[in-house]
């Protein structure tokens, strides 16, 4: 969905000129709105308010902030729950769609998975806020049965990582199901036929044939989801406003960075937090890439 698979970049792919022309606008935008701001924040992270070199003092200051450790803990809990559920359910659902024989129901399922992803992040969070508020929720009887009579019962601190994971899964998983479904389609039918002839059932085929063959796509999903997950912001920010501040506005690391920039007017500390997040993402991505052998060509 997002890009052509990596394995295609073999010798010779440098030849067509038109290709470069097509990439150019994207490259310009990437430099302007991707690389540029990143470089600027790295500059900010190592300087003080007057532009003097500040060493790592911005990093030590933000790491020593009383809100830092809780924020990191919150994000870690969320990312863990989200990545595990994402991997398990997305793979399962992709396998299910792939197994559906009827072409019409397959199309319907693919469309259904994709719809929630079409809602922009903030609006889907708003939708969930209504769903989770017992006084206005269409499933309020279910919430009451679970013992939640007030909105504040539902958004108790212990529930939040799971709630955010639920929202993120609902909005983001559909696209990934389609990506993995596409990956499953690339597996040659001969291989699957051969497995069948050898007596492999659907489960054995899935575990021994299909999963190893789509491993790269799963790793790819994990890398991007990890990077997105550590940047948790919209969900807690909106829940904070909806709960009139009971969920604090410094729940996640990204929110803390926002607080640094805009309520403490400390853009340098904010940049230090953001650069820290970037480093964590880069390190984890490197591990995933190495372990998942993402760049190996078959």
């Amino acid at each position, binding site marked *: 969905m997002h890009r052509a698979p990596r394995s295609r970049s073999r010798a010779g792919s440098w030849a067509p000129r038109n290709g470069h022309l097509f990439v150019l606008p994207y490259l310009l935008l990437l430099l302007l709105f991707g690389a540029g701001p990143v470089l600027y924040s790295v500059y900010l992270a190592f300087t003080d*308010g007057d532009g003097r070199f500040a060493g790592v003092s911005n990093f030590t200051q933000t790491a020593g902030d009383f809100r830092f450790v809780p924020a990191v803990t919150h994000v870690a809990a969320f990312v863990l729950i989200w990545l595990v559920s994402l991997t398990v359910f997305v793979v399962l659902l992709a396998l299910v769609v792939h197994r559906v024989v009827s072409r019409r129901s397959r199309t319907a399922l693919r469309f259904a998975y994709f719809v929630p992803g079409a809602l922009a992040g903030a609006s889907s969070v708003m939708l969930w806020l209504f769903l989770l508020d017992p006084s206005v929720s269409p499933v309020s009887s279910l919430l009451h049965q679970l013992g939640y009579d007030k909105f504040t019962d539902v958004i108790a601190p212990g529930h939040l990582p799971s709630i955010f994971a639920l929202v993120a899964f609902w909005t983001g998983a559909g696209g990934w199901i389609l990506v993995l479904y596409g990956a499953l389609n690339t597996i040659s039918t001969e291989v699957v036929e051969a497995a069948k002839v050898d007596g492999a059932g659907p489960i054995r085929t899935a575990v021994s044939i299909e999963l190893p063959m789509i491993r790269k796509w799963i790793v790819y999903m994990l*890398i991007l989801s990890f990077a997105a997950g550590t940047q948790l912001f919209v969900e807690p920010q909106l829940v904070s*406003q909806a709960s009139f501040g009971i969920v604090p506005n410094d729940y996640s690391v990204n929110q803390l960075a926002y607080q640094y920039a805009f*309520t403490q007017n400390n853009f340098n500390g904010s940049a230090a937090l953001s650069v820290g997040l970037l480093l964590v993402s880069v390190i984890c991505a490197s591990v995933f890439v190495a372990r998942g052998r993402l760049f190996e060509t078959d």
Partner: protein
Amino acid sequence: MKDSRVIRTGRWRRGAAVAALVVAPLLLAACGSSSDNAKPAAAAKGPYGFQTEAQDASAPITVWVDSTRLAAAQAFQKAFPNVKIKIENYDGNANGSNTFKTKMALFDKAGSGWPDVTFTTDNNSASWGSADGTGSLAPLDKGLVPAATLDGFAKGAMDVCSINGTVYCLRNDLAQNVLWYNKKLMDEFGYPVPTTWEEYEALADKVATEHPGYLVGTAGDAWAPEIYMWAAECPANKVTGATSITVDTSDPNCVKAAKLLDKTIANKTMSTLSLFGPEFVKNQGAKVLLLPGPSWYGGAVFQGTIKTPKGEIAVAPALHWADQNPPSTGNVGGGTWWISSHSKNLKAARDFAVWVTTADAYQVDLAPGFPAYSAAAAKWLAKQQASGYWANDISAPIIAAAGQVWPGWGSAAFSQEAIWAKVVQAGMAKGDSVESLLPAWQKEIENQAQVNGYKVN
């Protein structure tokens, strides 16, 4: 949102990009100029006591208002069609949103874009806006606004606007706490109106057994401490200087207020729902017997949100603790108007701010809250009374309470409301007592004070 993040971060995996990240800051540091807001030494101060931009009497002014104050800006536009004014709607900085400060920090960074006049509902802006570099709000009592105008505001009205004796804003409305009550229900139940918090507590016990379900107050909003703790003279927010504060939530005054809350919450006469949330209106709106709270509850809560019928709601003098002499009450918000020192048309900005706070055409005819400008306040009360909505004469208790607001609760640069919500309300939602949360409240205030540059004594 997710997808754009996904795509963007996906590119960072490339080793080349990572290498660039390491080299680039050095390059930037070498050629980058100081982008920060260090102001030139205040050499030439203008006629208003601060350094002004080049003035242009025909320059349009930009004003930021919340949805309630939109009427003020529109009324001004109608009264002065020749003044070019651009009205922008924003959240009014309500509920600790910090929008005003957030945007000003961005404009400071960009070096342009400041609104000329801004309305806020919070009381935290003077402390950061008076500092050079963050917002740089204009001092008003150094020549910009005539002393005669400033003197026309109620005593103490400008306390939230003042830092080290300099006034940085014009107060829109006062928000002193009084005791709202449903006279029809109180008469029906045969209860006398309490005058002290001790009597209030005793009455709550009676209500709990005789008329369960009815409420004597609410503590579900972030400003609950400004009603119960402030009135008890709890020293949780004693701002002692521009950047110093003392906090002691273990003080007996805080403990007695916490115990009162715990007891009334336990016997279910104190609601823990937000007054403006959907649950309260739906389930408890018709059950309000007593409601200690600010003067603006009359319009905003009874007429606006829960829509109590005409002729039922009355006002009694603010509750006080029996041992208090003189009696003290709290204050919840009360709007303020700020002028930016960066304005290119200070005269028009000044005229706007003075007009919306003092003119009858807004403060008497349209304003929902008790005007801070005394002449307008008297007329506003008379008009309220004439409306026939109230079940008694509301002016005497409201005027009396205006002079009883305890001055020991300050306005720091950070939001006490956000702290209360984060620590105490979150704890209450888990079932913890307010008294048991006092140490956590103390810790959070100290922490917030420190990261905002305050010295905690």
